[in-house]
């Protein structure tokens, strides 16, 4: 989803069109739904990797609820086939989103409390896999890895200030350990709830898509995915794509893991790996 958005943004920049405001809002809501789903998934896996399967299964159930919501909204559990060049292809059923998210938020807060109050979990996560500010800075860390190591970088807050305004807070933590990365995710989840609610309330009226005339040229498209900033470079010649370079945030974050695991016991490796949640394919793009 975030990758397809980065791609269409690049195309729209080349073709020099502004998409209708309603389409922008719908895209933002879908992006937050995806971020929410990924963050809940990571949260569940952290529970799993510290050996707390009760919490893990409960949070997996929340993720499944969200995927079922996606299915009712767009017909696909991963919200595929909805973003198109020039807008979106479908309107959203905002009542369904409100209903499910209301339920989800209440449940989520319970498991957040469970995480923060359970000594078994905190003992494993605190001071594990520390990434210091200098390391993160040197490797140009992105996303939650950067935010947990005292660097704030969020595409939404920098490039799309007109849309998000103050909804994306400059949240950062200093510790840089596993529990800091989970806390950054907590903040992201709460922010997503907030953004979706605000956007549903302020949804403008009008068209959801615009026709476009293909043009030649080259442009960058940026989007804030769950893992961090996604950049697409696109060149169109004679109406065809001649060059397309994708840079996934995992490309920046992979080398950091070798610094993060230093001094930790081997049993903590899966936990640190999960807290970074790096994409294997993202590195090779």
């Amino acid at each position, binding site marked *: 989803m975030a990758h397809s958005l980065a791609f269409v943004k690049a195309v729209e920049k080349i073709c020099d069109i502004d998409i209708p405001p309603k389409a922008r809002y719908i895209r933002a809501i879908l992006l937050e739904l995806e971020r929410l789903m990924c963050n809940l998934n990571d949260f569940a896996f952290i529970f799993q990797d510290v050996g707390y399967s009760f919490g893990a299964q409960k949070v997996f*159930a929340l993720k499944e609820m969200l995927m079922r919501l996606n299915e009712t909204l767009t017909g696909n*559990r991963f919200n595929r086939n909805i973003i198109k060049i020039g807008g979106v292809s479908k309107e959203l059923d905002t009542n369904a989103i409100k209903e499910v998210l209301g339920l989800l938020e209440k449940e989520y807060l319970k498991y957040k409390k469970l995480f923060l109050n359970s000594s078994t979990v905190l003992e494993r996560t605190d001071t594990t896999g520390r990434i210091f500010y200098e390391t993160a800075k040197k490797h140009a860390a992105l996303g939650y890895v950067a935010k947990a190591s005292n660097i704030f970088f969020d595409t939404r807050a920098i490039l799309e200030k007109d849309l998000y305004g103050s909804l994306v807070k400059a949240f950062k933590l200093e510790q840089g350990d596993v529990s800091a990365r989970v806390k950054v995710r907590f903040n992201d989840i709460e922010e997503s709830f907030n953004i979706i609610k605000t956007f549903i309330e302020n949804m403008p009226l009008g068209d959801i898509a615009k026709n476009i005339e293909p043009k030649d040229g080259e442009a960058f498209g940026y989007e804030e995915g769950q893992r961090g900033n996604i950049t697409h470079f696109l060149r169109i010649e004679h109406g065809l794509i001649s060059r397309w370079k994708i840079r996934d945030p995992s490309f920046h974050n992979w080398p950091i893991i070798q610094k993060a695991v230093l001094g930790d016991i081997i049993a903590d490796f899966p936990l640190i790996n999960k807290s970074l949640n790096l994409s294997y394919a993202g590195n090779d793009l």
Partner: protein
Amino acid sequence: MLNILKSFLKEGIKTEDITPYNEQNIVIYKRLPKHLKGSLNIRHVDCGSCNACEYELTALSNVFYDIERFGIKFVASPKHADALTITGPITRNMYKPLLDAIQNTPNPKVIIAIGDCSIDGGLFKGAYGIVGGLKDINIEPHILIRGCPPHPRDIISGILKGFEG
């Protein structure tokens, strides 16, 4: 501990009944050996998928689908497995490892293709980095579950359906 017990009592069991159904998304080429019913060990091989299928395979073990109640289990090596699940268009880098995995699975090996990509390359058909789907490398799966990605309900139903008849 008390809170955990309380939430168990309050929320009840979320697991859903799944009765195998015939659907256009499920294609059965060959029946699965009867003796594997109730104890099917699966080794998953990702041949270059976009990870959506993996997300759905992970979802199989959540409380809603709970695949282990049917005796289906994921294992860590093809040598321990009865069946292989294959996702994604087969990339050039994963072609050899896939053949190795198939060779190392003891007979009678069951091959389950998951997702549109796995059978003919799907969205990635004809791309430079891929060899093609299972069709292109002349391996006939027992079951094909279509979808991009397939619904977890379809995956369970497809495997159960394979034992019938």
